[in-house]
C-alpha cells in the first residue's frame, strides 16, 4: 500500500474522531468511537504475532505492550492517590475556611505553576544518593557513604510520589469548584430531616461533586500515561515508562525512528481517545480552571 493512501486513511479517521459529533448529531458518538477503534486496530490486531506493537518490539526492552500497561498502572495509582489527597484539602478550603479563602487557594495552587523540573530537583535533594536522607544515614553510621539507599530515588515509588507532588495542587481546583457549587440548603434540609453529616456527605455532597472529582482524576491520569521527565530523572529501571521507550527510539540508545513513530502514534491514539471520550468531564473541570 503506498504511504499516501495510508496517510489519507489515517487523516480521515482522525477527522472522524475529532469532528464526529458535529458531522452527525445522532451518530456522532459512534463515529468517534468507531474511528478510534479503527485507529487502534493496527496495533492490537489478532493474531498477536503480526500486530504493529509486536513488530516494533525489541528484545532489550521487552514487551512494549507490557511496558504500556505498567505506565497505565502507575498513572492510575498516581491519579487515585492524588484524588484521595486532594479531596480533603479542597473540602477544607471550600467549607472549613471562612476568611480569605482565595488567598489560601492561591497558596495551594501556586507551586503547580512554577517549574516542574525544579520540583523533581527538590525531591532529589531530599531522597538522592547524596541527599538529605542518605547523609543523615551516613552521619548516624547506619549506612556506608559508598552504599547509599538508592531505591528511594530511583524507583516506581518515587515516580508516583513526584507525580503526586506535581499534580495534587492543580486538581484541588476542579474539586474545590465542584464543592463550592453545592447548594448548602440541600445539606441543611438533609440534616433537618435527621441525616447524619456522613450520610449527607455520601448522599448529597459526593454525588454533586462527582464531575469535579472525575475531572481531577483524568487531569492526573491522562498526562501521566505519557510521562517522560519524571521517570527518566527518578525512575531507575523499575520505574521505566512508555514515554521513555519512545524517547529512546529517537535520541537514546535504541535509535529506531520507525519503531518510535509506531509507539508515539499508539500513545497518541490512546490519550486522544481518553480525552475525547471524557471531554464532558474535562470541560467541566477545565472550564472551571480558566
Amino acid at each position, binding site marked *: 500500500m503506498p504511504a499516501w493512501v495510508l496517510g489519507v486513511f489515517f487523516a480521515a479517521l482522525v477527522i472522524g474522531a475529532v469532528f464526529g459529533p*458535529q458531522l452527525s448529531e445522532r451518530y456522532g458518538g459512534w463515529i468517534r468511537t468507531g474511528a478510534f477503534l479503527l485507529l487502534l486496530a493496527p496495533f492490537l490486531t489478532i493474531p498477536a504475532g503480526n500486530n504493529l506493537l509486536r513488530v516494533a518490539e525489541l528484545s532489550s526492552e521487552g514487551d512494549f505492550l507490557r511496558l504500556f500497561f505498567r505506565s497505565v498502572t502507575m498513572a492510575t495509582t498516581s491519579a487515585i492517590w492524588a484524588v484521595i489527597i486532594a479531596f480533603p484539602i479542597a473540602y477544607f478550603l471550600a467549607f472549613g475556611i471562612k476568611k480569605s479563602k482565595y488567598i489560601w487557594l492561591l497558596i495551594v495552587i501556586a507551586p503547580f505553576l512554577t517549574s516542574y523540573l525544579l520540583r523533581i530537583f527538590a525531591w532529589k535533594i531530599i531522597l538522592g544518593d547524596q541527599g538529605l536522607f542518605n547523609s543523615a544515614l551516613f552521619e548516624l553510621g547506619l549506612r556506608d557513604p559508598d552504599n547509599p539507599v538508592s531505591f528511594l530515588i530511583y524507583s516506581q515509588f518515587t515516580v508516583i510520589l513526584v507525580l503526586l507532588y506535581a499534580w495534587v495542587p492543580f486538581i484541588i481546583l476542579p474539586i474545590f469548584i465542584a464543592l463550592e457549587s453545592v447548594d448548602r440548603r440541600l445539606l441543611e434540609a438533609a440534616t433537618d430531616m435527621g441525616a447524619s453529616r456522613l450520610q449527607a456527605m455520601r448522599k448529597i455532597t459526593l454525588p454533586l461533586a462527582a464531575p469535579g472529582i472525575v475531572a481531577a482524576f483524568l487531569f492526573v491520569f491522562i498526562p501521566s500515561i505519557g510521562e517522560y521527565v519524571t521517570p527518566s530523572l527518578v525512575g531507575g529501571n523499575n520505574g521505566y515508562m512508555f*514515554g521513555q521507550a519512545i524517547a529512546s527510539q529517537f535520541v537514546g540508545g535504541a535509535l529506531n525512528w520507525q519503531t518510535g513513530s509506531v509507539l508515539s502514534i499508539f500513545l497518541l491514539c490512546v490519550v486522544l481517545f481518553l480525552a475525547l471520550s471524557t471531554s464532558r468531564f474535562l470541560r467541566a473541570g477545565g472550564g472551571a480552571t480558566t
Partner: protein
Amino acid sequence: MSRGTTDVFMSRNGKRMLALFFAGFLVFLYLPTILLIIFSFNASTVIAFPLTGFTTSFYSAAWQNPEIKGALIASLKVAAGTAVVATALAVLVSYALARKSLRFKAGVSALLLLPLVVPTVVLGVSLLVLFRPSDPIIPIPLGLWAVLIGHIVIALPFCVLLLLPRIASIDKRLEEAAHDLGASGLTTFRRVVLPLILPALLASLIVAFVVSIDEVVVASFLVQDQATYPVYLYSGLRLSGQTSLLMPVATVMIVASTILILAAALISRYGERRVGLAR
C-alpha cells in the same frame, strides 16, 4: 461560628483533623522547595544538616559559568518570542471564535486545545521528525528556532483559554457603536477591544513566557549546540553528580516564575473587574 447554627459540612473534631491534614499538606508542598533554596546558600557541596555557613559563592560561580549564562539567554529569547507570537495568534483565533460564525466551531476549538492533551514527548519527537537535519520535511534547522515553534504550539492553548472568555464577554454593541460612528474595523479593535482585553493580554503574555521558560521535553529533542535553561538543568540532573551549581540556577527560576505567575493572577483578576464594569 455563632451558636445555634450547626456546621452542616463538618463536626468540630472533623474540622480540626482537616485543618491538621491541610497544614501537613502545606509542609509537604513547600518543604522540598524551601530546602532547595536553603541549600543553595549553604557553604558546602555536601547536602546535609547541620548547615555549615552562609555563602553566595555558588551563585557567583553559576553566574560566571558561560554555559549557564548562554542557556539563560537562549531561554529568555525563546520565551519572549513564544509570548509574543502565541499571544498574537491567540488574539486572532479567539476573536474569530468569539465573533464570527464558523462551521465546525467546536471542532476547531477542540483542535486548538489538543496540544494540552498530546503527550509532550510525542510532540517533541514529531517535531524532530518534521525538522530532521537529513531530509527535513520542513526545512527549519534544529536549534532555538525549532524550540520556539514547539513552544508556540504548547503555549497557544493556554493563551486561548485566557483570551477567549474575555473577548467573548465584551458587549458586541460597543463594537457596533464604534462602527456606526465611523470607526474602521482596525480602529474599533485598537480603541475599543484592545483596552478591554489588555489585562487578559498581559496575563497571556506572562503565562506563555512562563510555559516556555519552564518547558524541557520538547526543547530537549530540538536543541542543537545551544541548550536552553531547563535543558541544561535537566541534563545536569540526569548526570546527577554535582548539584551545587544547579541549585542557584533552580532557585532563581523558582523565584522568577513565582513572581510572574502571581503577577498574571493579579492582572487577570483586575481584568475581570474591568470587563465587568464595561458591561
